[in-house]
């Protein structure tokens, strides 16, 4: 069972978030219509792992790029214009493009992995959160725990509180 509290104002929302965080609720998500640096701070999100994907992608791309150009040149040796078969300068251009291509693709992959999207099941959500409301969601809290969470949220000045059954 999940508890959702909607807030009209950022401060209340953040206050609630901090309170919950400090009182040991680990499974909370903070929904907001715009990115909020503070909210991310509350959850202690620092550097994202996405950047590792990007780096890996770029490196793999560079290798793949040169391998493609040089390798295919060797598969079928066709001399042109008296140039070397493995002609470094033009192959660097291919390398360059492939670096970027793979970099981008891996970053995309990274995004999906880290943000664990696409979501395969619906999760507690209020459309208002994508318009002009801030929503705190506490999941996996039951019984007396839930009551405490609800108290904290209400105390922080939530407009409404929703209870939703999580589909297990």
């Amino acid at each position, binding site marked *: 069972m999940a508890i959702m509290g909607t807030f009209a104002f950022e401060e209340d929302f953040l206050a609630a978030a901090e309170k919950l965080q400090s009182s040991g609720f680990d499974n909370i998500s903070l929904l907001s219509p715009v990115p909020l640096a503070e909210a991310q701070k509350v959850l202690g999100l620092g550097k994202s792992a996405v950047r590792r994907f990007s780096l890996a992608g770029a490196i793999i791309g560079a290798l793949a790029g040169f391998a493609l150009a040089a390798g295919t*040149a*060797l*598969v*079928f*040796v*066709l*001399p*042109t*214009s*008296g*140039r*070397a*078969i*493995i*002609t*470094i300068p033009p192959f660097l251009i291919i390398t360059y493009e492939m670096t970027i291509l793979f970099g981008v693709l891996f970053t995309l992959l990274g995004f999906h992995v880290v943000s664990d999207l696409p979501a395969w099941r619906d999760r507690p959500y209020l459309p208002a959160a994508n318009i002009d409301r801030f929503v705190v969601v506490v999941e996996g809290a039951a019984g007396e725990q839930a009551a405490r969470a609800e108290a904290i949220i209400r105390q922080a000045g939530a407009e409404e509180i929703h209870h939703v059954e999580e589909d297990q």
Partner: protein
Amino acid sequence: MKWGNDLSTFVEKFRQYLKPGYYDEFDYHWTMTIDLDRCTGCEACVVACQAENNLPIVGEKRYAQNREIKWIRIERYWEGEYPDVKMGFIPMLCQHCDAAPCEIACPVFATYHNQDGLNTQIYNRCIGTRTCAVYCPYEVRYFNWFTYTWDEPLEQQLNPDVTVREKGVMEKCTFCIQRIRLAKDNAKDDDRRRVRDGEVVPACVQSCPTEAMAFGDSNDPEAKVSKMMKNPRGYTVLEELNTTPSIVYLKKAHAES
């Protein structure tokens, strides 16, 4: 894969492939010399080429649009004004450059340098980007803007040793590669390693009524071309571009006195 599985050979090959240039390794280096002092601009070579290589009859309309296809053409240049006016002819055909500007241009390897030192054009491979023609400083590449047809029964003349090109394909002088292939086969048949000098000549050279053109393998120092190339009148067109053409022209001599 060409290099097999052996790593060392691979590395060795790899090193070798890093060096530019290849001409010294050619089996043959087919070369043509054209003596402008003999050339009279009679255009016999032009028709010879048309007959040998199935060049289309494009018709008046296409000609007016500069869509003609003539693998070898005669360029004319006037010098001076009347009455001291002179005319200079120069046959212009694919120069089969060792450092051909056209070859790097092709994205699909439709044109490349083969082991006879020929600048080849593979019609089946061509996708018609026309880049090679733009890059060619001698403007000797011709494009099939249409699929040309022959008025029946003219098609019966078509040379079965040469393909008929379809629309969207680039074409150019091949040094009559079909003749070269035949000569090499014959050489193989009677267990000679190499084609004899003068055993094969392109249609244009064959027909030239003034014997202005010579053709042969310049790797062979005894060949006629090798001797002609040493002529002090020898030069290559647009030398400053460093395309190292396989066609050496012999400048028109001037009457003493």
